[in-house]
């Protein structure tokens, strides 16, 4: 791109990619953290009432 304003165009798309990439990454990291915390709680025997009912024979 030999346009005199190429820097502005590239900066716009780079900034957008950074923000949207951050949102996607945040969603993935948060999901893993919550799943891990739930697993740790369940491993310690702390379960929701509905989960206890499902686990019961």
């Amino acid at each position, binding site marked *: *791109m030999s346009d005199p304003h190429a820097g*502005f165009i590239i900066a*716009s798309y780079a*900034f957008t990619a950074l923000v949207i990439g951050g*949102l996607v990454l945040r969603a993935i990291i*948060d999901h893993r953290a919550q*799943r891990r915390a*739930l697993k740790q709680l369940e491993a310690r025997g*702390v379960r929701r009432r509905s989960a206890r009912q499902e686990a019961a024979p």
Partner: protein
Amino acid sequence: MPRLSSLWNLANPTRFLGLADRLLPWLAALASALLGVGLYLSFFVAPPDYQQGETVRIMFIHVPAAWLGLFMYVMMSASALGTLVWRHPLADVAQKAAAPIGAAFTFVCLVTGSLWGKPMWGTWWVWDARLTSVLVLFLMYLGIMALWRAVDDPGRAARAVAVLTLVGVVNIPIIKFSVDWWSTLHQPAAVFRIDGPTIHPSMLWPLLVMALGCTVLAIALHVAGMRNEILRRRVRSLRLMEAERLDAGAETAAGAAR
């Protein structure tokens, strides 16, 4: 009303988690495909503008970001009604998950607008009605996110945030009609007009495909955010349950020692 009640049942948090797990891969794939096609059209098919030159390509991301900043706020307002009127368990989850996404798109709109304004208007910023009202929208998002963090109990926070969100909704028509009501440096609407779009189809199509791609991406991020928020609330309630159990155990042990 059987259809309404089945929709109501579908909005049960446990069912929502199952639905989110099934939907998210498809939404992510659709958003990637649409954005891939949209970027190709924006950079390789759309011609340079006769006045703006290549800088018009910033519009293909600036305009969808602006639409989504507004869309997420309208969505949050509908959820705020769900919280205050129907007290639906997923309404405040939806509202909380939408705020950072709306804030991010509004921030992208402000920054890309500024990056377009410098070469085209000769300035990064002007305090005209459109720019200022969008800045107010961004500050509203930040205020809402801060209020969520300020109150520990999610139920109480949800009601306070719902009231603040509904107060802020007055800004949405101000943003939309600011270019008609006041004399602004920002150009008037070019797509959603009563007499039809004023953009040539060679530029309108890339813009619409990018807007659709960004919308599907925002919906995917929102579903993922809601899923995370439901899990976070489960973790919180299980930790409270564990703490109560430990307290009760300690009291029993202390009683036996006495």
